């Protein structure tokens, strides 16, 4: 089956209102900019978004929040976004905060075909409320279920026509994990090459996890905290 799509609008044509959607990225690093822009354009409503962060007011997932397209946000850290905070406090937006490692590993579990994981993160805190606790080697662990999403939106550095992906630096973050957890995984890449051009030794995400791929355009790659040292 042909995996290559011309652009984000085509790749996302069947995303539906109320869909559960994962977004790769950490902060604004490695986020699927083209997919987010296409969702804004489409105006898909009531999204349940699973993403480590909620972007900033005018970029990343913040753009979806601005248009009030998000019903629920499942994240580990949502600072730096005033509109998010406003919608949350006014009750327009539902939010579930979960530990970052738990979030990552729940995505991974889905891709590895495991229904749940045990993690010590959150034991004894409000995160543990209502969850099964098991003791292994005298330490308590919470049972956390695997995450699956209707769609996973992924940003990679390079990809090929088979859907194989290579990520760059810390833009890898949640991308390979969410790629494994999407019922339909859509990858946007900076560079799209014919099968055979990527070194199979270097592939991070095998194409079996990727259903659609397209070459992204106009990457802004906004930096959230530009921090530099002076030439001394």
């Amino acid at each position, binding site marked *: 089956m042909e995996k290559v799509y011309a652009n984000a609008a085509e790749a996302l044509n069947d995303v539906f209102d109320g869909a559960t959607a994962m977004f790769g990225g*950490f*902060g*604004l*690093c*490695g986020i699927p900019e083209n997919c987010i822009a296409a969702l804004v354009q489409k105006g898909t409503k009531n999204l349940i978004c699973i993403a*480590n962060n909620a972007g900033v007011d005018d970029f990343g997932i913040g753009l979806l929040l601005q248009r009030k397209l998000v019903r629920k946000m499942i*994240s*580990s*850290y*949502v*600072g730096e976004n005033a509109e998010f*905070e406003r919608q*949350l*406090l006014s009750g327009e937006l539902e*939010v579930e*905060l979960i*530990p*970052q*490692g*738990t*979030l*990552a*590993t729940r*995505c*991974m579990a889905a891709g590895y075909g495991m229904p749940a994981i045990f*993690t*010590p*993160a*959150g*034991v*004894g*805190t*409000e*995160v543990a409320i209502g969850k099964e606790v098991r003791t292994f080697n005298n330490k308590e662990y919470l049972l956390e279920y695997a995450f699956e999403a209707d769609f996973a939106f992924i940003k990679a*550095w390079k990809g090929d026509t088979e859907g194989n992906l290579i*990520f*760059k*630096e*810390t*833009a*890898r*973050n*949640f*991308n*390979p*994990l969410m790629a494994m957890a999407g019922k339909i995984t859509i990858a946007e890449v900076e560079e799209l090459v014919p099968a055979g051009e990527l070194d199979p030794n270097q592939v*991070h995400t095998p194409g079996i996890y990727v259903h659609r791929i397209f070459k992204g355009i106009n990457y802004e*790659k*906004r*930096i*959230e*905290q*530009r*921090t*530099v*040292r*002076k*030439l001394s």
Partner: protein
Amino acid sequence: MLDKNQIAQRLAKELKDGYYVNLGIGIPTLVANYIPENIKVVLQSENGLLGMGPFPFEGQEDPDLINAGKQTITTVPGSSFFDSAMSFGMIRAGKVDLTILGAMEVSDTGDIANWKIPGKMVKGMGGAMDLVASAKNIIVAMMHTNPKGESKLLPHCVLPLTGIGCVKKIVTDLAVLDITPAGFRLMERAPGVSVEEIIAKTAGRLIVDHEIPEMQL
């Protein structure tokens, strides 16, 4: 009384040659500026990097290369990138030797609260709950009191917990304290700070059972 940089300087003395270290946001980040030259430590950034280097020079910022505080950074020779599941995997598996993080409150049994102020701050725990639940050695870096002058070293945390019974040591602007089964044990005092002042500003159980030396920076 120490300033933030001096707290970081004191914390750097906890580093040992060969350590893999995770530094949290705030004062802990400053520890990287004081790593002794005769030892080698590898900094882990939980978004997916081992071998974090200093901030880039102006004009060399790379948007694909950031730390867990979302700051632009660099790598050192021998660094590696990985996904967030592996990053927390190595933390959970106890491969990271030392975690230094900030806190709003610490209890005298080693509980920590640093992620939420009900009704005021909704930012989330990020990786803090994973780190405190798994790290072998956890040191908290914080001010001894809050801006209102109230102790942050308490009998029980009032704010929602990040983790329980996990903090091993605290370095504040006033003191270095170990956490023992009997409560906070005063180990060092900041230059010019009296034991009486530390007692007055520590709300939890505090043990002073020996001559308390002044910190060496």
